């Protein structure tokens, strides 16, 4: 296991009171809703950032608002740290527990409470998966726009925690742009509602603040999300290039020409091979880099937009242009793309970076990424949301080799710093978690971070909520 990222030292006073705490929690929760047998806690020790693991004190799986509130109130009263968990698909360790913390998992609160098509919104419990919303409203011609690749499994509560994006946010925005309201349980158990079915919430934009706060401001238990009418048609088109640089430059020129497709996804050769092996989507294997460009609208609109994109692509020496011929083919193209991370597991372990850079820097950052990873003697596969510069280099390594694991982590840090130095940021959509926590000072000054921490403390003065995450452990305010 890698060890360079530290967690907060477990509080002995909590650990020594474990039996009492569990007995007390069993008064607040039905027996099925509290996991506390040591063996049963092991599967909760990590999320999709599997390099780091910590056993939790116990895991609460509440079924009602009242239970969430009661459990938080208890933890607040007795100073027990809390780590919220959705589906545990975080790639930055956002849901990794710590020994003195109670995990509060929202997986039992997974009902779609209301679909309101007239007001174009849905009210769902936090444990509902992202895709389940689109599935529920799809037959009526609507969808929920943010579509993280893990959308099959990840929950809306987790999406709000990380302000998740996805492939199609180039046109439709990320979670914060599609969120109308939340029901939030504050650290002391108080239940508040922010926003609602109306477009703009009243007062300070606490809703905007909560979105992307990584479970540090409260636990979201319900969300009201915006629904959008599905376009008449959508067509992904594959553009194959000789080199990543050409593909990157093409992306910048498409956007620069004022053309905004719904999605522009990028895959380099290793990524193409990995995804094709799983999805058999018909990606060209004889190219060095691939763009999946999706346009939508009526046939005429798609034709017009595609013609313009093809022309730009030709200027960048596009080698292959492949329009998909059927809905099945389109589904396979997206299945391959969205399964890219998991499919990588077929050939190696990986850690996935998430820096975002300005489009003009895309080609340069791709080149440098390759050099950095090679410098550590490792391989990299790139598959990411090129249209908004959100890069996902997958650094491949062998997790059973501690030396390689350490190198992968070091290479990742270099890449993220590179993204910041190129005018971008550490994380576009996965969140800071523990993974990028210690790099925060590379992006922010002390005053910037102090201000963020002060706002955080306004919600959670004792720093009980997901305490090991986001903010570097040194330089935190005294509690």
């Amino acid at each position, binding site marked *: 296991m890698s060890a360079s990222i530290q967690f907060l030292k477990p509080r002995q006073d909590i650990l020594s009171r474990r039996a009492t705490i569990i007995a007390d929690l069993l008064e607040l929760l039905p027996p099925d809703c509290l996991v506390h047998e040591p063996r049963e806690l092991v599967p909760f020790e990590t999320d999709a950032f599997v390099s780091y693991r910590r056993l939790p004190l116990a895991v609460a799986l509440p079924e009602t608002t009242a239970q969430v509130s009661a459990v938080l109130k208890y933890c607040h009263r007795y100073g027990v740290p809390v780590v919220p968990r959705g589906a545990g698909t975080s790639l930055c360790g956002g849901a990794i527990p710590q020994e003195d913390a109670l995990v509060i998992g929202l997986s039992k609160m997974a009902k779609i409470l209301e679909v309101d098509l*007239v*007001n*174009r919104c849905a009210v769902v419990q936090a444990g509902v998966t992202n895709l389940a919303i689109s599935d529920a409203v799809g037959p009526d*011609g*609507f969808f929920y726009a943010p579509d993280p690749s893990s959308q099959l499994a990840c929950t809306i509560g987790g999406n709000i925690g990380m*302000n998740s994006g996805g492939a199609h*946010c180039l046109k439709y*925005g*990320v979670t*914060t742009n599609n969120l109308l309201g939340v029901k939030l349980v504050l650290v002391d158990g108080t239940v*508040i*509602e922010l926003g*609602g*079915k*109306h*477009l*703009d919430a*009243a*007062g*300070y*934009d*606490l809703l*905007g*603040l909560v*979105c*992307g706060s990584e479970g540090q401001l409260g636990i979201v238990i319900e969300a009201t999300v915006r629904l959008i*009418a*599905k*376009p*008449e048609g959508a067509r992904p088109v594959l553009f194959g290039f000789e080199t990543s640089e050409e593909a990157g430059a093409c992306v910048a020129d498409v*956007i*620069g020409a004022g*053309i905004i497709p719904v999605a522009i996804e990028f895959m380099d050769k290793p990524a193409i091979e990995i995804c094709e092996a799983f999805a058999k989507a018909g990606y060209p294997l004889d190219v060095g880099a691939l763009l999946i460009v999706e346009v939508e*609208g*009526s046939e*005429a*609109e798609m034709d*017009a937009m595609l013609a313009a994109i093809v022309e730009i692509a030709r200027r960048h020496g596009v080698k292959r242009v492949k329009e998909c011929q059927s809905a099945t083919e389109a589904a396979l193209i997206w299945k391959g793309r969205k399964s890219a991370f998991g499919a990588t597991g077929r050939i190696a372990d990986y850690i996935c970076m998430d820096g*975002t*850079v*300005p489009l*003009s820097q895309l080609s340069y950052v791709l080149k440098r990424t390759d050099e950095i990873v090679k410098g550590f003697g490792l391989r990299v596969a790139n598959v990411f949301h090129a249209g*908004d*510069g*959100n890069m996902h280099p997958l650094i491949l390594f062998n997790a059973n080799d501690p030396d390689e694991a350490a190198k992968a982590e070091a290479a990742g840090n270099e890449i993220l710093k590179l993204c910041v130095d190129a*005018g*971008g*940021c550490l994380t576009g959509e*996965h969140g*800071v978690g523990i993974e990028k926590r210690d790099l925060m000072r590379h*992006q*922010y000054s002390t*005053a*910037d*971070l102090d*201000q*963020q921490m002060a*706002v955080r403390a306004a*919600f959670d003065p004792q720093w009980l909520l997901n305490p090991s995450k*986001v903010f570097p452990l040194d330089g935190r305010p005294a509690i």
Partner: protein
Amino acid sequence: MTAALIPATESEAADMVRDAGAAGRRLAIAGGGTRSGFAGGQQADAVLRSTGLSGIVTYDPAEMVMTARAGTPVAEVEAALANNNQMLAFEPIDHRALMGTDGEPTIGGVFATNASGPRRLSAGAARDSLLGIRFVNGKGEAIRAGGRVMKNVTGLDLVKLLAGSFGTLGFLTEVTFRVLPRPQAEETIIVSGLDDEAAAQVMALSMALPLDISGAAHLPESVRGRFLAGGLPEGPATVLRLEGLPASVPVRADKLVAALSRLAPLARLGTDDSRRLWREIRDVAPYADGTKRPLWRVSVAPAAGARLVADLRLEAGIDAFYDWQGGLVWMRMEADPEADLVRGMIRRHGGGHATLLRASDASRAVTPTFEPQPAAVAMLSERVRASLDPAGVFFSGQMGEA
């Protein structure tokens, strides 16, 4: 007249805030002052103006991102964008005619008030376009938040928090925002003769079509004549806007017409008239009447707008029109603001909020401008405010008040 502090640099602004803090003076934050009068400010010891911090810092059209100092006139920003066929997607309202103010609206003021127009429905509010900010907090520290890329979850989103905080949390010195290509063509379909409730249904039906409608407003007969100099067809007008490529707009307009033609008489407006109409809707032209008659800006669920107005009409003299598919109600009262009535009725119609945009000084003195928040949210808001401005240097007006 309160004294004005007009810093020329961010560090000068920071000094001024620190000095004010040390001296126990309260500062009201302002830009061009064109949106003033509804967020308070008269009780401050001095006004801290952003107008000295002016100019576009960077603008890269290919990246669709601009950085400008907070005091940069909106006109300057829009001119630069227009030169590159780009625009502020959220169509910020120009409050001058409505509020009876003059001067130059600033880009900082746009974001500080989250001023969003009709395209809010499809392209989001001002806060959705804001990518990064620099500001001075109440301790006189210069803080940077966000960045210049669209996707960014690095740390807490102070950008959203400052957007729409009406100068009560910090003094914006620089804003970085996303811009979009300006649609090359637009067309508006006018559905005539619908009452408010029927209009709400037609707007909902239209928004459910795969046509990418970027504006949906209903202009009842009482206001219809005040748009396009009386040029709209007879009867209440329900207006739906389509924008985009010249090849696509007429096609989508035909489809919309086909979908609605059996419901009511239809008319179509070409690009120029359409642009003018939506600018007038954006700026609430019918109520820019040179009076101080109370004006509410009400935000409710789209389907609730018409019913809310119908119920209020039974108890008070009001005139209203609707934007955002019915979810934004501009409501002018005949006499008193009737705040309790309006706000009580909003709660009965599923919730939302009302901002008293305009009122006589006497009414304003006794009416909270912003929607009073439930106690728990108000307490939280106050703690958040204090975390940015512990000593209360910035005049907090009525934001976050219980």
